[in-house]
């Protein structure tokens, strides 16, 4: 047998379940899962890896769109396959009977329980919606395609 240098796979999963608190203080004491939301942003906005939190700057607006976006109902329990930990929302994001006349192309997933901290930005090609529906269907929840993966 030999030792192999690696980041432990269980650690990656435990990041997704809030088990580890590095630093000198613990910033959270909750024992229940956080609530997450998904907000849409204009194609002219600037949301990327450096985004730290939800903001109304650049967010879409229009009939039947509520600022802050939609609540993500649930996530698949974080799990691992091989050396990858992953999770995906269990349902599509949907906005119904909306009118979003200015082109948008991104959705921000953020933690509305933890000061609206940003999770991820996903882009999908510029789009407008007129008195219609906009849906984002989630990818397959596996180690290759899941919405959030830590390899």
């Amino acid at each position, binding site marked *: 047998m030999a030792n192999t*240098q*690696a*980041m432990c796979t269980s*650690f*990656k999963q435990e990041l997704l379940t809030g088990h580890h608190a590095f630093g000198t203080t613990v910033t959270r004491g909750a024992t229940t899962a956080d609530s997450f939301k998904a907000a849409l942003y204009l194609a002219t906005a600037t949301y990327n890896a450096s985004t730290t939190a939800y903001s109304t700057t650049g967010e879409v607006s229009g009939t039947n769109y509520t600022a802050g976006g939609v609540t993500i109902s649930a996530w698949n329990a974080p799990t691992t396959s091989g050396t*990858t930990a992953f999770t*995906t929302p269990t349902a599509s994001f949907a906005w119904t*009977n909306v*009118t979003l006349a200015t082109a948008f192309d991104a959705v921000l997933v953020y933690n509305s329980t933890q000061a609206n901290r940003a999770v*991820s930005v*996903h882009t*999908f*090609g510029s*789009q*407008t*919606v*007129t*008195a*219609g*529906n*906009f*849906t*984002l*269907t*989630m*990818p397959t929840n596996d180690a*290759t*395609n*899941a*919405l*959030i*993966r*830590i*390899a």
Partner: protein
Amino acid sequence: MNDTPLIYTSKGNLPIDSLRYETFWDIGATYYKLVERYYVGDEVVRESAHVYSLQGLGATGEQGSII
């Protein structure tokens, strides 16, 4: 009684048979998008879009060495 099927548009509820319906596909590297449009003449009165995300985002964990 014969009901006329209506659909909600920017001009209110209109008979669906009076509208021209078209679909478009946008194939991206990480998504497929279906766009549906209803027209009155050349005017789009209802547009919906449905995105199927093929793949989410991955982050790679790295560990350093103790020298």
